[in-house]
């Protein structure tokens, strides 16, 4: 667990998976966003019923997407503790790879032909 230096801006409305991806698409390296506040592990547990089903699905999808993007190297995921079981879950955009493998495009074009 690490702390982030940039000051994250909380989103005005509940963030959806698509909105999170759209933010990342336009984010510069180092930009940060709080994609959730609370205790993710507890809130996404169905048996605890802490959130409504729709809200739980939204949060679960969002956190899953954030994890996938972190695994793909697009974001850093960090948390800031605000109190007992109260965290800011922050995603920080990483620098995009300058260039992908030059062999990839000819391969997919050949598949499409």
């Amino acid at each position: 667990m690490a702390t982030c230096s940039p000051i994250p801006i909380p989103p005005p409305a509940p963030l959806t998976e698509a909105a999170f991806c759209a933010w990342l698409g336009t984010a510069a390296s180092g930009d940060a966003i709080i994609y959730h506040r609370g205790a993710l592990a507890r809130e996404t547990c169905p048996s605890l019923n802490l959130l409504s089903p729709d809200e739980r699905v939204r949060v679960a999808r969002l956190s899953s997407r954030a994890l996938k993007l972190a695994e793909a190297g697009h974001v850093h995921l960090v948390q800031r503790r605000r109190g007992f079981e109260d965290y800011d879950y922050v995603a920080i955009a990483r620098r995009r790879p300058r260039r992908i493998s030059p062999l990839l495009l000819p391969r997919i074009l050949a598949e499409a032909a």
Partner: protein
Amino acid sequence: MSHPITPADLRTIQTVAAEEARRLGRSLGLLPQDRDDLRHDLLADLLSRLPSYDPAKGALGAFARVCMRHAALRIGEQYRQRRRRAHTVSLDDRLAGSEELTFADVLTEADSYGSWCGQPSDAFAALERRLDLERAVGAIDPEDHPLCAALSRHTPHEFGEQGTMPRMRIYRRIHEMRLRLLAAGIPSAA
């Protein structure tokens, strides 16, 4: 045709071929020097039909004219189709409304023939497009490349009809690809 062709028959056929070639060349707007090619094509077509000529039914000249008119229709249509597909123009032709400029004067070597056809010839735009494509390809899971290739030819509904992949999976993968592209800074055009 049971009897051999006499010199008189040949003269008749040559005369009809020349007339029909001239008529066809005029209707296609061809230069006089192209009429020899047309005449040759008409004669070649007639030669293949001569065995079915019956002198009892009419004169050879009439038979040759009917055959050549039909052949001229076919040749004319083929020529028009070719002309629709590719506009034949010489680089030395004068530009419309200009006494001095030719096509070669307004097309640069780098732009090539494609620019005259309205195709993009901007090297920078082409490079940017290639980089965008590479970025998009890099954002998509390699497992989805065959699906992308299929979607370039079919709608998701049509692809689902083929039974290659369950419809539910197709739409799930499309949703996933959209989100990945969005995260890579490539929003949907729609």
